[in-house]
């Protein structure tokens, strides 16, 4: 009971902070419209901070009220779909990363696959890297498959982010997104410990779960 009261106090504090930011940056009619949408999101159990951030982004970019409302509605729909895809117990960070992945064209099946690999751990970073790769022109199917392979091999989140950065660097120098991801993933997989090997000191050849060119 004591913790529930603390949660209520902390929650109210966070909401108050959100309101203060919105009040400072939005005119009264826009603020009222945004708060209404945030209430809807809260009633659905969706994270509200991504909506506050989108409203603040609209304010900074001097978007009219209608544009801010449209942007928030779109983001709320994606958050909703993300939560449905990832599961009701997913963290706010996972749901937000899933929404960003949906935003750039990652299908729900691919998001569901990543959740299946990590049913209890956060998938925020794998989803973020997947979204990055797809936004940079890597075919969705290829990017999803590669990220899934790496997750199964126990890649760290830092390694995954570095992979996304390396692929972007290759693309910037003229490499094809698909070819770059192929090469970088194979290189990274070769560096990862074979599951079950002692101390991870035994490096593998290209593992059998990595897709091969026909």
């Amino acid at each position, binding site marked *: 009971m004591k913790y529930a009261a603390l949660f209520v106090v902390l929650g109210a504090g966070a909401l108050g902070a959100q309101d203060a*930011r919105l009040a400072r940056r939005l005119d009264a009619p826009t603020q009222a419209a945004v708060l209404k949408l945030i209430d809807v999101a809260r009633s659905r159990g969706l994270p509200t901070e*991504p909506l506050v*951030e*989108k409203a*603040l*982004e*609209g*304010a*900074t*970019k001097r*978007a009219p009220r209608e*544009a801010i409302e*449209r*942007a928030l509605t*779109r*983001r709320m729909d994606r958050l909703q779909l993300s939560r449905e895809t990832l599961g009701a117990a997913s963290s706010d*960070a*996972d749901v*937000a*990363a899933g929404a*960003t*992945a949906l*935003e*750039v064209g990652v299908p729900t099946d691919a998001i569901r696959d990543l959740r299946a690999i990590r049913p209890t751990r*956060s998938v*925020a*970073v794998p*989803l*973020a*890297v997947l*979204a*990055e*790769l*797809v*936004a*940079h022109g890597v075919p969705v199917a290829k990017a999803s498959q590669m990220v899934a392979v790496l997750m199964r091999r126990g890649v*760290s*989140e*830092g390694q*995954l*982010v570095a992979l*996304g*950065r390396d692929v*972007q*660097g290759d693309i*910037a120098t003229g490499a094809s997104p698909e070819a770059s991801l192929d090469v970088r993933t194979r290189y990274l997989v070769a560096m990862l410990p074979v599951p079950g090997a002692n101390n991870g000191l035994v490096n593998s050849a290209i593992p059998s779960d990595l897709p091969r060119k026909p």
Partner: protein
Amino acid sequence: MRSRLALLTLAIPTSLAAQLDVRLDAGAARLSQRSLPVRSAMTSALTVQDAGRAWSVWSSALAARSDSDATAQGVGVATVFMPVGNRLRIEGGVVGAAFGASRALPVTAASGTARGQLLAGNAWIEAGGSRGRVWRMGSSAPLTTISAGAGWRRDALTLAAGASAVRADTRYRDASLIARLSRARWELGAAAGARHTSDVSPGDATWGEVDAAWWLSPRVALAASGGRALEDATRGVPSTRYATVAVRVALRSRAWSHAATRERPALSIEMHGEQQLLTVSAAGAQRVELMADFTGWEPVELTQTGASFSMTLARVAAGSHHVAIRVDGGAWLVPANLSPADDDFGGRVGLLSVP
């Protein structure tokens, strides 16, 4: 009346120029100074700043000569900047100045200056002072100034207000307002102020100045300025009404051509102890700002170190973040190494993955 014009120039070692941000103005002026006839003059100004913004040197010179008289004036300012943490900056410097007219002894002045600036988001407050001497008519007097001010900068607009008290062979108090707007290809500035002098009558006077520059190319601009300046006891310069036009040459390309002539800036984020260090590499840029979901979409100016600009962040949550950067007040950009995504407002943002 036949005028013969002379230009005073200052030189710097060319071997250093590549490491420095150098601007040279050369032009003509029409001016009226107290007790002297209206005349034309040639002007020059030189600004040298190192790429790391650790120090700067600024100087200007003006010379005019007619059948009946000649005048010359010059001022040089050297300043060292020392950041203390992310919020405090300390400056120290020296100022030397001289004004001479034919058939009169020159007036010279020299002083040391110190100033502290406390930064808070887009705003700052500052306080400082100087001590020195003024030599006039064969005698000298101590020179003391104290000053305080505040400013605010948002996007390309800078506003500042200040007040100072000067005690030399005369005493006065100044108040001033300054506005500057810097866009990709042009710059505008305006300043105005009022002075109260306690030991002369009438004791109150006002002044105002405007200036503008239009960049014809990444390295060449046309500049113009005009207005009324009151006597500057700290530099020995009499009150002056003036109008100038000049050609400005920069040794380094101005950033409006950044997108066309250089690679777009790239952004990286690394762990730095318990915090994260966000770095933007933007060679040739003078100012880089970032806004992102983790700044509440408030533009934040990054701290320059050489060709890189950085900021330390409290732990940003793992996952996907949206960011945009801006160089020298230009358009908001997606960093070159980040994937672009629609922002739902008709623009683009960069996707940043944080482990």
